[in-house]
């Protein structure tokens, strides 16, 4: 009997140490997840004291709502555009700050270029609103250079708003990619570049045939992470355009917020949130498979 208890105690110790983590995960992840899915199965919750179970009716409504599909398309554009922007700018700047220049200058540029990452979404949105204002600096420069004759309403014109949002998102998000690639670049063996140089390779040849293949695992992993984050990005979009003008920049996350806190349709909002969850989970599975392969 005593030996059985001792055995159980010994075997149970690791689980005991796991307990706080499991409790926190349970409280912070599982319960809200369960509640959101549950909410999506009722006619309305929070504002309705006695909600009625409606099964999948909210999903049916959502799938026939043009507003949902429009927000979905905008989310796709915003996500793909942002990730591409982050990648191109991030890789380019990582190559520049990895250059063999004076150490102080290199540290200075690395510190400055990482700054957009540390600003909060509110600060980023406000600054870009000022820059993109019809009387702002960007319009002033464009007119001074003779590229435009009239000030453009970058965030208020439906044809320009998504492009402006992509610019803001690219500026905000490239530092993470830059830092990730910078660390990746420092693991590429110098011998490979030396061998390529002996073979007569120039900058672009070295980039295509040495740097990119060596960074491929990093690119894939970081791109997937970025995809997951950007897909559900809310504050930057809401604070920069509010999903407007009209619904030109409405993405699934802003639609969720609008349904919940503007229209008080919490069950519809939960339904959109579940659809975001399903797509994000698919991206996450891809990411985890990639990480497992690397290990």
């Amino acid at each position, binding site marked *: 009997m005593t030996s059985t208890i001792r055995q159980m105690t010994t075997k149970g110790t690791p689980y005991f140490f796991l307990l706080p983590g499991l409790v926190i995960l349970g409280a912070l992840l599982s319960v809200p997840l369960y509640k959101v899915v549950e909410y999506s199965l009722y006619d309305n919750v*929070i*504002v309705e*004291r006695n909600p009625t179970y409606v099964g999948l009716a909210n999903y049916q409504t959502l799938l026939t709502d043009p507003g949902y599909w429009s927000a979905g398309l905008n989310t796709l554009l915003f996500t793909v555009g942002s990730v591409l922007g982050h990648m191109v700018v991030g890789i380019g700047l990582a190559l520049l700050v990895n250059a063999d220049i004076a150490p102080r200058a290199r540290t200075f540029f690395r510190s400055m270029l990482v700054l957009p990452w540390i600003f909060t979404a509110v600060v980023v949105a406000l600054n870009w*609103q000022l820059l*993109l*204002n*019809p*009387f702002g600096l960007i319009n002033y420069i464009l007119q001074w250079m003779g590229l435009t004759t009239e*000030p453009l*309403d*970058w*965030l*208020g*014109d*439906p044809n320009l708003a998504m492009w402006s949002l992509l610019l803001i998102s690219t500026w905000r998000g490239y530092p993470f990619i830059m830092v990730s690639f910078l660390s990746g670049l420092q693991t590429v063996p110098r011998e490979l570049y030396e061998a390529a140089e002996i073979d007569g390779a120039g900058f672009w040849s070295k980039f295509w045939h040495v740097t990119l293949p060596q960074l491929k695992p990093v690119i894939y992993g970081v791109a997937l992470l970025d995809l997951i984050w950007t897909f559900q990005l809310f504050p930057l979009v*809401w*604070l*920069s*355009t*509010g*999903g*407007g*003008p*009209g*619904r030109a920049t409405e993405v699934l996350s802003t639609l969720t917020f*609008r349904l919940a*806190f*503007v*229209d*008080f349709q919490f069950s519809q909002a939960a339904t959109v949130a579940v659809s975001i969850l399903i797509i994000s989970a698919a991206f996450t599975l891809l990411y985890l498979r990639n990480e497992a392969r690397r290990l």
Partner: protein
Amino acid sequence: MIKTRMTAFALAAATALTPLAAQGEIEWLQWFAAENTDGFYDELVADFEAKHPDITVKLVTQPFGKVRESIVTDSAIGVGSDVLGLNMPWTKEFLDIGILEPLDDYLARDDNSFATGDLVEAPLGKIDGHTWMVPLNAFPFVMHVNMGLVREAGFDAPPATWAELSAQTSAISALQDGTSGIGMPFSSQPPSNGPILTFLPLLYANGGRIMDGTTPNFDNPKVVETLQYLKDMNDAGGMAPGAASRTGGVDLEEFIAGRTGFLISPGVHSSSITSRNPELDYTLVRVPSNGENAYRVHGWEIGISADSANKEDAWTFVNYLLSPEVNARAAKAANALPGNLKALDAVREGADETLIKQMDILSGDTPVEEMRQSPKAVGSWSVMTEEIQAMLRGDQTPAETATAVQARWIELAK
């Protein structure tokens, strides 16, 4: 012994975990203190607690844009505040959810520090047979004027009519790059309420309305006429460019910086304008009329949560806030007019010219407040914003705009 200790422990734990505080402690959720950063409301609470040692007040301050959602979500999970700072347009939505406590019985008490008949009337009107809120203060929507730009454009006096406003906005916009006649904040950014800040005051000064009782009535000739007026002003260049990305905050900042001639907004903004830019040649006037001297009345309201466990203490605090002496102090702190009109004389003493002008507007013109009985008021602003954006872009006529808003609003209210 062990049993006693266990019971004591359980009691202590239960006390610690109970979300609603002990009797005599109430929570006041509001945004008012966020607009008065000089600690006025902390002093007010301290004064109340000194006079009522058995009640403590926890002041919870949030930005205006956050308060509505906090009230709803807090109420849903049972941690709502006892006393609530309210905005009249939220009334109908909150009633549908059952958040507010009817105040009729409290108002009928003989020992109140005020007479109900002395309170500003707009928030008191009964909905579903009851009164749901009382006014802490009140202010009319007015037009703030940059007299420097008005004179520079060749005019001696601010505009009093729509025709004069059109002429002056175009003339000011023509002065130089970066200067505009008037700003119109029709951005979709939260709270996306440009139409109720600017369009409604112009509509009321045109004798129009958007509600028929509790039913939306947006597609009527007066609305179309007012939309046409906005469109004409925009086409003539009188309106600052970028209305579709201009927020109320930016609109106020641009006026304070002296880059727009006129700003239609609550009169309470006069204190921000004069304190932030004392050099501005500034005055305020009633919103230019097109036949009717009517103004959109606004204010900071107070209600009690239906779920409050301390309703009596909550009312004691509300009663304190509405007493003429306290109400006058609160009004002066916000540079607004008192919710209790018995405090008017105290507020008038030492009041500046802009406050006196607001008092004249309040006493002489017709107050209008339609949004408090409007279904889905907040959602309706977004719809108005989106359709007015499309009209100013030239995508649809004013008549089509009115029809589109009406259809979408009715759909939203279903």
